[in-house]
């Protein structure tokens, strides 16, 4: 029941926020914040739950569309719970960042924000593939609205691009899901879209490969991975800050989650055969997008490309498919969720202050806004994988685990660390170091971070340090779930490896 509550609260809160705008334009943000806090509390209550049965902490399974054997099946294990917490946390952060930035039509804005998050929660908890797909699509429309209404100069193009990429690949995934369900029908004589039923399906390896590709394309488009990444820089650079935060912090993670939860466990053999290609793509996008990031002049585009680059480590970790690598992937997801979100918020607050994202206009801000600069320094250091911060743990574990399953690709990917340092330090140099000059922009309201901003940046800094210095508290949470997933594919992997 609590799971329905989690999602329902957000859906309801969204509607309320929208309606409440008529009363007072300040009300919606309060409602949104309240809803998210409530969710966060509910999630925290789940933390205590024992994950005895296969790591599932709490589950709910009701019939929904009997004709197709579709059920409303939600469940949470450690993995999902981590991501739920991340979602709620970043949701709150996003509300914080929108607090003063979104002034017009705030009601509809928070409606969309909450509905997106609701969709994401659904994705992280759904265990019926139809339901999963349902939420997968639900989260897109509000996101489209957020970009298209509150975005910047080129919002129409960006929003449309985001929408088309995710929708079209989504349809491919739908075809895959249906094919899988149909084969289940053929083998077991009844329709079912339930995760655990579909796990039992086994098909000829070629068909399995095709179905798997359907999922893979959808998920790696969301992740994203070269060559499906090109929607992301546009979407990010055009979206309002809160939008970028949700997009980078949470939406991208749904792709990774999909790979971990569905793509690999449902098609272990195909995934195993496909792993080399996947890891090659991962390495490629790590390096390629690091290079692209360095080339950008638009700050938000730059950060966007770094996101793609970091997601490469996630993909690498997932397709290495051993515990260390998976933990690394999960940690990377969490840490990147925070660091990327923070960087986007910095970019947003800069744009809010000087109305420009063009790094060529900037320089020497350290003298003007030392606090902001220090914060920016911290997060770019985190982004380049400084030990002691979350990102390092994630990337190191991912690479460490990947090393045993695919040496060359891991070595190539490791060079990403060098490029990461190149672009991260470039940002610092370009914006915060150097001689300050306000020739290119009006710095009348270029003020240092205020209390609210300091508060949420502080929270994120603490989070990253916690992940970096004592990641165990996160690793423990996801361990059971990941071991379960690994166990599911164990014997097959071992047999194939032997042959």
């Amino acid at each position: 029941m609590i799971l329905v509550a989690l999602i329902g609260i957000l859906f309801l809160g969204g509607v309320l926020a929208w309606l409440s705008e008529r009363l007072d334009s300040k009300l919606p943000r309060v409602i949104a914040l309240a809803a998210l806090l409530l969710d966060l509390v509910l999630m925290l209550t789940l933390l205590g739950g024992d994950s005895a049965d296969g790591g599932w902490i709490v589950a709910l399974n009701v019939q929904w569309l009997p004709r197709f054997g579709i059920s409303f099946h939600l469940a949470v294990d450690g993995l999902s719970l981590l991501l739920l917490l991340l979602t709620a946390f970043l949701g709150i952060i996003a509300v914080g960042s929108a607090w003063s930035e979104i002034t017009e039509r705030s009601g509809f804005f928070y409606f969309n924000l909450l509905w997106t998050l609701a969709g994401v929660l659904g994705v992280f908890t759904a265990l019926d593939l139809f339901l999963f797909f349902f939420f997968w699509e639900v989260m897109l429309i509000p996101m489209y609205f957020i970009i298209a209404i509150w975005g910047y100069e080129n919002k129409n193009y960006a929003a449309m691009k985001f929408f088309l990429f995710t929708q079209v690949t989504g349809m491919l995934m739908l075809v895959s899901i249906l094919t899988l369900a149909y084969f289940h029908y053929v083998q077991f004589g009844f329709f079912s879209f339930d995760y655990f039923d579909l796990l039992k399906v086994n098909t000829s390896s070629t068909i399995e490969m095709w179905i798997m590709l359907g999922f893979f394309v959808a998920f790696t488009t969301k992740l994203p991975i070269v060559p499906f990444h090109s929607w992301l820089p546009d979407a990010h650079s055009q979206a309002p800050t809160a939008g970028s935060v949700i997009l980078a912090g949470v939406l991208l993670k749904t792709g990774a989650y999909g790979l971990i939860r569905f793509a690999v466990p449902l098609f272990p053999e195909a995934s195993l055969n496909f792993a080399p290609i996947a890891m090659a793509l991962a390495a490629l996008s790590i390096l390629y997008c690091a290079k692209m990031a360095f080339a950008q002049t638009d700050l938000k585009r730059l950060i966007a490309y770094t996101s793609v680059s970091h997601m490469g480590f996630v993909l690498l970790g997932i397709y290495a498919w051993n515990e260390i690598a998976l933990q690394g992937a999960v940690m990377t997801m969490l840490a990147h969720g925070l660091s990327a979100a923070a960087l986007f918020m910095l970019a947003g607050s800069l744009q809010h202050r000087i109305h420009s994202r063009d790094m060529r206009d900037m320089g020497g801000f350290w003298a003007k806004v030392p606090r902001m600069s220090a914060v920016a320094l911290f997060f770019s250091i985190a982004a380049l994988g400084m030990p002691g911060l979350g990102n390092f743990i994630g990337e190191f574990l991912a690479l460490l685990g990947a090393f045993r399953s695919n040496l060359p690709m891991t070595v190539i990917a490791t060079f990403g660390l060098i490029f990461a340092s190149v672009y991260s330090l470039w940002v610092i140099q370009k914006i915060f170091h150097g001689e300050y000059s306000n020739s290119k922009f009006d710095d009348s309201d270029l003020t240092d971070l205020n209390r609210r901003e300091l508060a949420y940046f502080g929270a994120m800094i603490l989070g990253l340090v916690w992940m970096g210095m004592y990641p165990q508290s996160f690793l423990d949470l996801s361990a059971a779930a990941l071991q379960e997933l690994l166990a599911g594919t164990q014997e097959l992997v071992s047999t194939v490896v032997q042959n």
Partner: protein
Amino acid sequence: MQDLIWLLPTFPLLGFLCLVLTGGSLPRKIVAVIGAGSVGLSFLSAVLIAAQFLASGEDYFVKEVWVWMAVGEFTPGFNFYLDGLSLVMMLIITGVGFLIHLYSTGFMADDPAYSRFFAYMNLFVAAMLMLVLGDNLLLLYLGWEGVGLCSYLLIGFWYENPDNGYAARKAFVVTRVGDTAMAIGLFLLFTQLGTLNIQDMLGAAQQQWAIGSPLAIAAALLLLGGAVGKSAQLPLQTWLPDAMAGPTPISALIHAATMVTAGVYLVARTHVLFELAPTVQMLVAFVGLATLLMAGFTAMTQRDIKRILAYSTISQIGYMFLALGAGAWSAAVFHLMTHAFFKALLFLAAGTVILSLHHEHDIFKMGGIRKQLPIAFWSFIIGSAALAALPFTSGFYSKDEILLAALAVEGPGLLLWIGGVIGAFFTGIYSFRLVFVVFFGDSQGHQEVKEEAGWTMAAPLMLLMVLALLGGWIQVPLDAVFSSGAGHEEAPVSLLVHAVMIAAPFLGIGVSYLFFMSKVFDVDKLMANPLASSLHRFWFSGWGMDALYQRIFVNPFLYLARINRNDLIDSFYALLVSITRTAHLMLARTQTGYLGWYALSMAAGLVLIISLGVML
């Protein structure tokens, strides 16, 4: 007390936090107290712990603080490991570090970003201590990257000048290249040996790997990559001279005394691996040799006082690598220590000179200031003496050991020895060239000289002078650590060898005297010779390495970045869009609005369909 070893990094870390969180709002006095005091505290505790440890007579001591992460069989912990090696290192770091902090309180006295400076310095000390005290390679890596970060921050400390920013980024990225190799090394070691705990790992390596086994070679090579990066050895030495852009105390602490020697520490720490890979060990020796010669040549040609010292540092670390390569582990560490003393001394002295000459760096614009700056003068005399390894100075003993060890190497031993001696000769030349040009001769009409600053800057110099002189008598407790490596029985060597080794630096000093003091030979005349001048240019540019790397790595990267600024891959999707668009426009033209045309299309469709049907 030993159990409190975790306090060592904690004190400076706390100092860092205080300074950062207060964000420069504290008065300078307090900042100075926090900044220097925290390091002082950890020095005190270091001394106490050292005393207790040596008293206990144990070989090593482990303090487990908490498990960092536990994933499957991968369970690195926040554990501290204390043995002779880390003991020496921690004493150097805290001791010299404290002196330099003290000096800085005076040196930076009128810098606006006083507290930011000390924040970074404290963070550095903390990271450096983690590096040497960590009991597993991951913790070492933590410190390793941490010091790299601080080095970046401090080189670019005066951020208004983009050149400093460039130097800082260069330093970080170049070392990062080495670090990446090292990271891969860690992956390899863990995958093969199943642990990153240094002692267990070494033990496992000895059991599983035969001498010269490819895996051992690979592992050793990768670690060496990290080492050469940090320690500015060939081929990754290019960053260090530029790193002089930072404030002088930084150069003293990070780029002379401690961080740059981390590579030496790493190799010494994992010497077992290198013994398992003799070829790599030999490589280490030759890297050292090449570096020390190359740096020696370059140092002779530099004009910037700090660059001279920087190159001398590179070359001295070259000696340490030579020692490592020769298997003289303790000799390397010993030289590391003495070098920390006299090089810190030299840098700090140079700092006072620069400060009192209003940030003048060019030695040929100085001259004849021995009267005005007696302390600096004597510091330089002693420092250079130790650097040139004149007898009875600390440098003498350490370098002596190294050269003998080099000679003892079977195979290319003689070659190594000769190279080392030549290096010593050059050391004599450039070190005293500096002294002669700066302190003797006639004043080069620079503006009046400021008074040497107060005791905070004088005291450290004094102490370091003493250490630089007498440091050679310190007994480093390393036998337990290098029990395996200490197998070198000094073969009785002829007096001739000793004579040569003693003579070499004196010769060098003589040469530089003739050139720069008595002006018997005229440098300019020499420069007139095209060969000499071109050679000079070549050496001056640091053997053209920068230009080379610029051409091989940097430019291609920039080129790629430039030509593909807006994403080639995206144009594919753009193509799809334009295809659909054209299709739309073409189809839209068929909607003519003419009834006849529509009827025709129907008829055509019908014919098409029926013919299709009938054909099948």
